[in-house]
Structure formats: C-alpha cells, structure tokens
C-alpha cells in the first residue's frame, strides 16, 4: 500500500499543474456578449474583396495607435500601443469567429464575433482599442464593434495595399480626407463631409466628381454611412476600376505610335531575326509632351542613347561616354527646336 500512496501525491500535483496551465493559456472562457439594436452594415462583397488587398493598417487615436496585419492563414492580429509607443494589448481574431484580447500578457477577453460580422483590419484596430479602453464586463455589440457606451474617435488611418498602393485618411473637424498613392506618388484624393453626406473625389486622368444625397436619390441614396475605414477602400476602387476602364478604352482606340529609324531592306531582314529593343518611355520629365510632335525627338534621343551607351552626364562631360553621344544631344536640341520627326525616322505603332 505504501508505494501506491506515494504515487498519488505527484499525480495530484500534475493534475493541478495541468489545470492551472490550461487556465493560463485560455485566460478567460469564451463568453457570449450582449447585442444592442445597432445593426451590422452590409459593405458588400466588392468592398471585402478590395479590403483583402490591405496587408497592414495603422489607426491613430487620441491616446495611442493600433497596427493590424493579416496573416497568410487569414487570421488578423492587432497590436495596440500607447502614445509612448509601448505595447499595451494585442487582439487575435480568427477566421472561425473567435477573438482573444491580451492586455499586458494576460488574456482578458475570449469571445466570438457577432454573427454576420466580416472582420477587416480597420475593424480589428478599432475593436482592440475599444476593448482595451472599456471594462470587458461592460461591453456590448454596437454594430460591428464590441464596446462600452462611448463611440471610438479615430484620428487617422494609414493603409498599405498590395501592388504598391498606400492610402491615408485623416479626420478633420468637418470632413474625412483620403489620399491614395501608388509607389509614393499621389494618384487621387477624396473628401467626405459627414454632416452634408457629400463625397468629392479626384483621380487625375481617370475620374472626378461629387456625390450628394440629392444626386444619389435615383439609386436610393446612401445605403450606408461612410466611415473613415470605408474611405481608403473606396479610393482604391475608384482608381482600380477606372484604370481598367481606361486601359480598355486605350486598347480599343488607335494604338499609340512611336518613332523609329527607317530601316533599309537588309536592316529589316536583320531586325526580323534579331529584333532590337526600342525605347518607348516617352519624354523623361516632360511627359506632358508625350502625345505631341516632340515625342519623336525624345524617342530618337533615347534610341540614340541606347545604341551608343550614353548617359545624362554626356550633356556636360563628353568624355564620360562615346563621342556619338554629343550628336545624340545636338540632334535632340535641333529636333525640339524644329518640332518634327528626325531625319531617317518613321512613325510605327507600338507592338
């Protein structure tokens, strides 16, 4: 009997240790939360398809900021920082619907999302901030956000989309302002006035206009209340959809033409077997002249540079490259002065 009694003690300790470790891991058991009468907004499948292109979103609040990232598995993870930049909470939202809040390393909330709620990165940031601010026992589902009575005041949202797109939305006293950039260059902007419910947008070369409640009456008015999180997705939609329309128009229209040296019969035969790479990027830093009579001058100059291995320094230091670079530059100057197709060059459509 004695040996058996000896074994009971370690088993009890092991069971207790296992129980406490499970408790530490789970923190708080999944809890059902109350839901207020505020309905969920149906943003539509197009919105969510575009929102999925966001890889990282930073949301700034008055007293901190939150960064959300979407993992390869579709789970969203958010880090909440105070104004000093110290991490104070993290939220882990799984595709299955569960979400867990850890504050300073301790799980303070473990629950499931409201049925029908599709998580976004902006939502995750707002949700993390709301839960970290309010006592977990006093929160309720207000629309998409599980929070206390007070609404969350977002000051700024910065988004990094795939494909080199980035957007920034700033809250001003009377409006939300969004800028969309592609590889660091601004490609469009939008303003929304919540009081007047008026949206103005401008994407140079693509589209620009205004949506007012009166104008939208024919389609039943605004079907949702635009938010700061909606602004950057809509900006991406404006750019991508209108770019696609423009690309289609260009493809259906007359092809762009470029100028190339006129080839003799031998060169044509040679080119058919060994095609030469031609410069077609237009007038560098003078792209407003790309569709004018000066375009041939730029293409001829680029081709001359490619053929002779020239560079920009050949303008003031002829020894840097081939001596042939000097005629390239002189011909460009003369061409710009005359504004016509260089000698022995013809217009050909782009391939």
């Amino acid at each position, binding site marked *: 009997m004695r040996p058996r009694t000896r074994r009971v003690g370690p088993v009890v300790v092991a069971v207790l240790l296992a129980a406490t470790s499970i408790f530490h891991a789970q923190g708080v058991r999944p809890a059902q939360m109350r839901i207020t009468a505020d309905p969920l907004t149906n943003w539509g499948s197009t919105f969510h398809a575009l929102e999925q292109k966001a890889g990282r979103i930073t949301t700034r609040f008055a007293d901190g900021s939150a960064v959300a990232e979407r993992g390869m598995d579709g789970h969203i993870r958010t880090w909440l920082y105070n104004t000093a930049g110290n991490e104070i909470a993290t939220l882990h939202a799984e595709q299955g619907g569960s979400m867990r809040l850890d504050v300073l390393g301790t799980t303070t909330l473990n629950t499931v999302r409201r049925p029908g709620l599709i998580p976004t990165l902006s939502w995750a940031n707002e949700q993390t901030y709301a839960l970290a601010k309010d006592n977990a026992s006093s929160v309720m589902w207000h629309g998409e956000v599980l929070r206390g009575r007070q609404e969350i005041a977002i000051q700024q949202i910065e988004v990094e989309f795939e494909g080199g797109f980035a957007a920034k939305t700033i809250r001003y006293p009377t409006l939300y302002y969004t800028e969309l*950039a592609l590889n*660091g*260059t*601004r490609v469009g902007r939008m303003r929304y006035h919540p009081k007047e419910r008026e949206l103005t947008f401008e994407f*140079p*070369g693509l589209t620009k206009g205004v949506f007012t409640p009166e104008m939208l009456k024919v389609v039943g008015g605004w079907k949702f209340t635009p938010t700061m999180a909606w602004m950057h997705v809509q900006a991406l939609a404006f750019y991508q959809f209108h770019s696609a329309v423009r690309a289609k128009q260009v493809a259906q229209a007359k092809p762009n033409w470029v100028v190339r040296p006129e080839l003799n019969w031998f060169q044509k035969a040679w080119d058919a077997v060994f095609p030469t790479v031609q410069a077609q990027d237009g*007038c*560098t*830093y*003078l*792209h*407003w002249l790309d569709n004018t009579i000066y375009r041939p001058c*730029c293409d001829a*100059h*680029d081709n001359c*540079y490619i053929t002779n291995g*020239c*560079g*920009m320094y050949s*303008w003031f230091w002829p020894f840097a490259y081939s001596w042939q670079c000097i005629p390239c*530059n002189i011909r*460009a*100057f003369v061409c*710009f002065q005359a504004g016509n197709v260089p000698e022995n060059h013809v217009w050909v459509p782009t391939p």
Partner: protein
Amino acid sequence: MSGFLRRSHVLVFLLGISFAIGLQLYFGGWWLDASERVRAGFVGVTVLAFLTASSLAHAAALWLGVNVGLTGVLVWLGGGNLWPIVILLEGGITGAGVGIGWAPRQLVVLLAQIKKGRAR
C-alpha cells in the same frame, strides 16, 4: 542692402524657391509630367508675379527663385536624359508666366501714375 540685393528681392527669390518645392509636394510628382500640372504651375507663377513683382528686378528675382527651386527638385529626382532641355523649357514657361503676371501690374502702376500726374 542696395541695388538688386535688397531684402525684398531676396524674399521674392525665396518665395520662388518655396513655390517650386510646393508645386512638387502638392502634386507628388514632377510638374512637367502632366498637362494639368503645367497649367497649374503656369497660373501659379503668373499670380505670384502679379502679387509680388513690383519691379522688373522683383520679377527677375521671382523667376530666378522659381527656376533654382525647380532645378533643385529636378536634380533631386535624378535629372533624366533630357535635363538641359527640361531646364530650358521650365525656364521658358515660368518666364512667360512671370512676364504675364508682371506686365498688368506695371500697367496698373503706370495708369495710377498718369492719373496722379493729371490730378496735379
């Protein structure tokens, strides 16, 4: 300071540089890469000349400032294969803008002087 290097000339010159940098920051890209940017730049420099170019020297200082600023931005961007032509063109466009802004201002001043002379 006297002659060309008056304080007001320096201020106008600096204003020209600021305008050039502002143009780049506002559009987020080089101003001669799109026609609407060229229009905005031209109109902007014209209005600036009308407001600040009280003399030919002020107009010259403004033009110089704008071109120093634009050339600086171009160098910062990398220059490109056609940089001397770009500088010449920007000089011409901004020169025309400054001239168009400066001329009506001079006309207004001249008319005011004539009116003043008649009154005497």
